[in-house]
């Protein structure tokens, strides 16, 4: 009975199914088929021997990862920097979008918005070179600090482990704030102007309107983005840490999982280890996304699934 009705239903909307078929094939080929490569994580994979010729070693690669103190340090760094980036990235993008929304002068608003998202198009190599020269002992930051008389000795920003995570956060915020705020600005423009008028009639000032109208209006956008970003919490980025933090003084706080994998997986040809680490990251990410989604559901928020 049920099967028949399913067939009937499919038949009814067959044109829709036909339309989605190419996408499903595409997703299968590029997202699911490559997952067969995960078998490498349980082998001692040698490219010349292929999947079927390489030696099966069970969980040895995972054991190597989890036994290594360095890996857990890399794990800590990754999560810490991700969380900081997430919190500050969200905060700055939302506040920026709110402030921009309050600007009345359209020309100024547009220019500010354009200028703010330009850094997004610079590659990390360039941004890191900029950051590096800004933070150098004779760079602009140190010059300003010295001119203000806060300290007479230049601060070694890129040699002090305590500063590094903040340097990364600063670089990320500077580069991505404008870009990330675009989606909020779009969401804000979808809010019904009548709500603002009503609030104004009720005597709400600017900040009150922001708090009671704008923010609730983009709450669902924020939640959806948060859920999606939680999925990439184990991708703290790779370039900034690699380009700014590879010196010996910082390596304890800068090495992320990706850099660990590059060093002990790709560079020395241990593709199995790289795959194992990738699997580990995926499992955690999927768990986090579903977890956040469930929580959002429970609190009655719009959720992804």
């Amino acid at each position, binding site marked *: 009975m049920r099967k028949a009705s399913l067939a009937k239903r499919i038949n009814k909307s067959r044109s829709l199914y036909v339309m989605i078929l190419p996408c499903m094939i595409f997703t299968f080929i590029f997202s699911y088929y490559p997952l067969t490569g995960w078998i490498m994580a349980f082998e*001692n994979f*040698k*490219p*010349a021997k292929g999947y079927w010729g390489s030696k099966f070693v069970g969980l040895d690669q995972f054991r190597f990862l989890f036994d290594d103190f*360095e890996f857990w340090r890399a794990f800590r760094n990754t999560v810490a920097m991700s969380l900081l980036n997430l919190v500050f990235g969200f905060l700055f993008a939302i506040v920026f979008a709110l402030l921009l929304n309050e600007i009345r002068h359209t020309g100024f608003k547009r220019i500010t918005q354009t200028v703010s998202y330009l850094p997004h198009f610079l590659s990390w190599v360039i941004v890191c*070179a900029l950051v*590096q*020269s800004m933070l*150098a*002992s004779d760079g602009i930051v140190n010059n300003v600090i010295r001119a203000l008389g806060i300290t007479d000795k*230049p601060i*070694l920003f*890129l*040699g002090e482990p305590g500063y590094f995570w903040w340097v990364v956060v600063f670089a990320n915020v500077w580069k991505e704030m404008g870009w990330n705020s675009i989606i909020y600005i779009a969401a804000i423009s979808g809010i019904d102007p009548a709500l603002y008028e009503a609030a104004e009639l009720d005597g709400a000032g600017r900040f009150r309107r922001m708090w009671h109208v704008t923010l609730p209006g983009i709450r669902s956008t924020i939640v959806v983005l948060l859920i999606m970003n939680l999925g990439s919490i184990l991708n703290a980025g790779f370039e900034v840490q*690699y*380009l700014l933090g*590879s*010196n*010996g*003084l*910082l*390596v*304890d706080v800068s090495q992320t999982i990706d850099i660990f994998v590059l*060093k*002990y997986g790709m*560079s*020395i*040809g*241990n*593709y*199995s*280890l790289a795959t194992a680490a990738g699997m580990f990251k995926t499992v955690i990410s999927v768990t986090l996304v579903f977890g956040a989604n469930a929580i959002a559901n429970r609190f009655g928020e719009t959720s992804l699934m």
Partner: protein
Amino acid sequence: MSKRFLAILLSLVMLFSLVSVAGGEASSDPTNIYGGLAPLDDAGDPITFTIFVRDPGTEPAADNPVLKKIAELTGVTIKFEFLVGDLDTRLGVMMAGEEYPDAVFAGDASMRLIDAGAFIPLEDEIPKYQNLNAMYGGCIDSLKAEDGHAYELEMYSVFRGNTVVDQSPIFECGLGFYIQKAVLEDAGYVIPRTLDEYFDIIEAYLAKYPEIDGVKTSGFEILCDGWRNWALLNPAQNLMGDANDGAMFVDYQTYEPAFYQDTETAYNLYKKLNEEFRKGVISAETLTMSYDQYISKLTTGAVLGFYDQGWNFGSAVDLLKADGKFNRTFVSVPITNPGVRDGYIEGKNPDGALPTGLNGIGITTKCKNPERLLKFYDWLLQRDVQDYILWGVEGEDWVKTESGSKAFTDARRALWRDSARRRDETGYTVWNYSPAWQGLYKSDGAPVRNDDSAGEYLASQSEYDQSFLKGYGIEYPAEMHSEPIVRPDYFPVWAMSLEDGSPAAVANAKITDVTTKYDSRLVLAEDDAAFDKIWEEFLTEFHAINLDALKDEVTRQIALKMGF
């Protein structure tokens, strides 16, 4: 109209150059088996070979006069496919589709192509070609991969058992503790031999000149940026008398490898660097510098000393020279532990070097005509052809010096130093990516390349450099060091390939990690107590690495190469 005029002019020029070359040198060198710069029988049948090269680069201009002439005489045109992007990715794509060009120069990465069966075996082909056989015949067994076949026409060396060339002399030491020439001049042309002496004269100069050309003088720089980490990690082995061996120090009596990272020499080295840091001779920033920052700092001429390898800072020296600041360029001095003989210079084995079997051109299974490519290479190896490509025309491009050596004319030297003009106006690119001689010709001692020529080395020195060398009473900077020691066949450890993902490879990566981390902290330690505490921590973490895995593998490979 003007086109026709140009064509006539061009053909006249070419005719003239043909005549002048043919008339200029009629040497009877035994390598000239095809009659030197004479056409081959099949020159009338044009063929184009595509060669993939592992370096980024640019193809020579289509109207390159030398390459045109070579094509005319041999019928062969070489088209280069230079690397764009990542080498491993490019090779992966090539292997996956078995879409090989006619030949490939992939350096160390050739191993993957050999494993994939991309190359044709050459051990039976080489003896059929007289000049190729003169080059590789004496060492063909070393050219063979583990499966017993030779796949590569190796380049860039004087090979053992070759019948044409000898090693050329060494003019400069390629690595070590460098010091600005002005500092040595100021100190009265002394040669510092220990770290104490080295830093003493740097400190004296620093006190005398706190600024150079308006820039704050920097005493000593240590670059440690990513893989360019040798300034921090390597010097201890040199202080113990070795050249650049790698992660291990090898005793030439017993051939037993040992780690130098945890020795007393290493302790004293970092202690000294730490002292200099606390005196302000070394700034903390040096350890966080990027390579670009380092090079631009050297370019100011205000850096007095640093440890490096010559090729790594060549661009800075070129700029200093272009600015006319010859006294701000650098020279390597023989710093060792007191009483230890310095071994910075890798002596060239007078018998020639053994090939690695990897660093050369491999002819692929898809090559459209391997016989003609090999014959082309054989033709190129004629002395007249090599001289024509590398030196040009006598009198016009080069002259004989008083001592019987060769030197460029000023115009040719300027052309050769300008890499774009060298590419478009000479046959350098083809020469550089083909089997070629180097060193000195056995028959008359003439240099193969300008880099092999004592006459050219001296002629290219600035007036300042000449007076600097006169101050020491020496002819070449290399003479500040002891006589070069010829290295055993295993040398060096850093070139040994460790099996992918093996415990030795993991240990090697860990050693780099741990030493980079702790050595930088040692240099920046606050006081003696902190220094000793960091050293203790370092020893604990260093010995936690599976050091024996690497040591056993290096021992095994030394035994293999030395034939124990």
